[in-house]
């Protein structure tokens, strides 16, 4: 390879020097508009805004449900709505999404029933929705392990001649895991149609980004594997949607995987069980509050005359209805059959599981009888 073409290759892989951004924190267009990406149409922005408002209401409702003991735990993504919604809107229904536990808002946006989304965190079962029907893998807890599954799914779609894309969602902490690196490497070698979307929300539970990496940005982790990368302002929905749409199309066209890093911020603690005041200053949180992605998009749309007070009020009402549905769904006691614990370990029960199932059935019958007596 000549020096010139090598330089072109390297430049084609490297992310922009600063995060791609269309709209500043105050909702006004930035002076220097990105030239490599197309700004989304107003209709798409209105839809995204709708989803972001609904998503945030879902998120705050879920957090509230933990306080009432209706959810065992909830990892909030408040502040990351541009990423959650942008990721889903960049995908087609026949594309696959491989989310983590923090991506419940993305799942609701994908159209999965909120109660089914919360089945995991409610403690009813490890996954409440049908991954095959929704093309959304179970929310993954062990960090970065599902990124390899996304590569495998992308590779299987490619081999079957389908033009589907797989998108894996991870946080900044997960980029330190070995599986993340193996996934990038495998995807690049196989030219798998996969998009790695890193929501860099600055904290892995309590550990700040500076303790996670010395890289100039997480997007630079792509170059070592020959993976094209980009970084984006994760609180600017326009930029997230534009960059992810381009990344998905790049992968879909058979040009190989793309790594996208979104700079965003986790406004809440890691989960309701965490105390963020032990590891970060309120000043920092306040600064990010000024960069709120929902407010930013709303201001942007209002300034363009695309949004009225009536629209905002109507959506707020819709969001309250959603919250009420979530509350109702979660307040209804779930009916669980302990015997189901045996039913999905294998396609068929082994002789040993059949015995153990019978044992538990007898125990349950006995305790039911004792309650009657």
């Amino acid at each position: 390879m000549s020096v010139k073409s090598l330089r072109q290759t390297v430049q084609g892989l490297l992310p922009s020097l600063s995060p791609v951004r269309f709209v500043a924190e105050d909702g006004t267009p930035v002076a220097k508009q990105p030239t490599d990406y197309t700004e989304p149409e107003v209709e798409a922005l209105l839809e995204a805004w709708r989803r972001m408002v609904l998503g945030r209401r879902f998120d705050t409702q879920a957090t509230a449900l933990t306080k009432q003991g209706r959810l065992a735990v909830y990892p909030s993504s408040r502040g990351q709505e541009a990423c959650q919604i942008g990721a889903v809107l960049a995908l087609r229904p026949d594309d696959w999404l491989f989310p983590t536990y923090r991506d419940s808002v993305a799942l609701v946006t994908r159209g999965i029933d909120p109660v089914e989304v919360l089945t995991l965190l409610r403690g009813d079962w490890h996954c409440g929705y049908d991954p095959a029907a929704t093309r959304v893998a179970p929310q993954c807890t062990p960090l970065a392990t599902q990124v390899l599954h996304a590569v495998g799914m992308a590779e299987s779609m490619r081999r079957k001649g389908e033009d589907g894309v797989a998108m894996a969602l991870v946080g900044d902490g997960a980029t330190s895991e070995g599986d993340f690196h193996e996934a990038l490497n495998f995807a690049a070698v196989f030219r798998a149609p996969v998009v790695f979307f890193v929501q860099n929300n600055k904290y892995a539970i309590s550990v700040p980004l500076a303790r996670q990496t010395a890289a100039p940005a997480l997007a630079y982790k792509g170059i070592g594997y020959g993976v094209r990368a980009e970084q984006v302002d994760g609180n600017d929905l326009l930029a997230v949607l534009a960059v992810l749409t381009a990344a998905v199309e790049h992968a879909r066209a058979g040009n190989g995987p793309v790594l996208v890093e979104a700079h965003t911020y986790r406004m809440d603690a890691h989960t309701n069980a965490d105390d963020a005041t032990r590891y970060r200053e309120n000043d920092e949180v306040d600064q990010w509050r000024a960069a709120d992605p929902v407010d930013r998009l709303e201001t942007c749309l209002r300034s363009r005359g695309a949004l009225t007070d009536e629209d905002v009020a109507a959506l707020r009402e819709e969001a309250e209805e959603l919250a009420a549905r979530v509350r109702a769904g979660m307040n209804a006691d779930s009916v669980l059959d302990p015997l189901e614990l045996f039913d999905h370990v294998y396609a068929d029960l082994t002789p040993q599981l059949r015995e153990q199932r019978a044992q538990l059935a007898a125990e349950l019958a006995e305790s039911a009888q004792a309650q009657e007596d």
Partner: protein
Amino acid sequence: MAKVTMAQALNTALRDALGEDERVLVFGEDVGPLGGVFRITDGLTRDFGEQRCFDTPLAEAGIVGLAVGMAMGGFRPVVEMQFDAFAYPAFEQIASHVAKLRNRTRGRIGLPMVIRIPYAGGIGGVEHHCDSSEAYYAHTPGLKVVTPATAEDAYWLLRDAVADPDPVVFLEPKKLYWSREDTDLETRGALPFGRAAIRRAGRDATIVAYGPSVPVAMAAAEAAAEDGIELEVVDLRTLVPFDDETVTESVRRTGRCVVVQEAQGFAGVGAEIAARVQERCFHSLAAPVLRVAGFDIPYPPPKLEHAHLPGVDRILDAVDRLQFSDEPDTRHLLKGAVT
């Protein structure tokens, strides 16, 4: 009947599986043009193409994680871990996803995939090439764990593993790769997947063995027969599912049982078997169930592995301690008193 090695039987099984089902894919490290370091995949890339049998980057978690995604996507991956101890980087994928995805999704997504692992010792391999790692997998619900001891079983159990709707860890006793036997591989034996085989009938005691220990148990039975003791040898074939029925029936009949495994004994598969046997056969037992295992040490260097591996003599010593006279065996107590 032709002489067939276990390596050839495994190769033929992969070949036939690839030929019969286009969803089957074979991948791993060096399994492509090289044919694998043990040549189990010899000629598969040549005959089925790079699309069906291919090399991957050198990363075991990556290989298994990729296989999970491809199984979700409708393929039936058969992956090779190059050696037992090299599979450990994939353990998280195996324990947290391969074993659990069906259960996690309430049966909506099963993972029909096979993880082939050459395992155990006896070939003079250096460190990290001789681990008996079966207990890790057998302890993990959601996995099926298979280990053949004959070429015929190697073929049919691998065919069954590939066709299974659930993930199978397929442990290949590498010291048996080159052992030959007369078989045509064309007629399936009478035993289904999940059933143990009685390799040798005997009335005096039952030796339960699997994988690399089966030929050792057979040799011990030959030797014991010369002294007039008839040992029955049970070859488990599949550790999961475990065939309680065959083992229990045999021990109830013989009244004595020795469990043999190459792996270190503590918390091993043999311990589980011994416990199951005494739970089910207590009133038929004339002696405690004994275990013959490797010592509880890291696998030895090649020149010392002979001291570690259970051989015929160690099995016969255990048979001697099965209280064929009415005197209870107190040797272990005396040993304890001396130290």
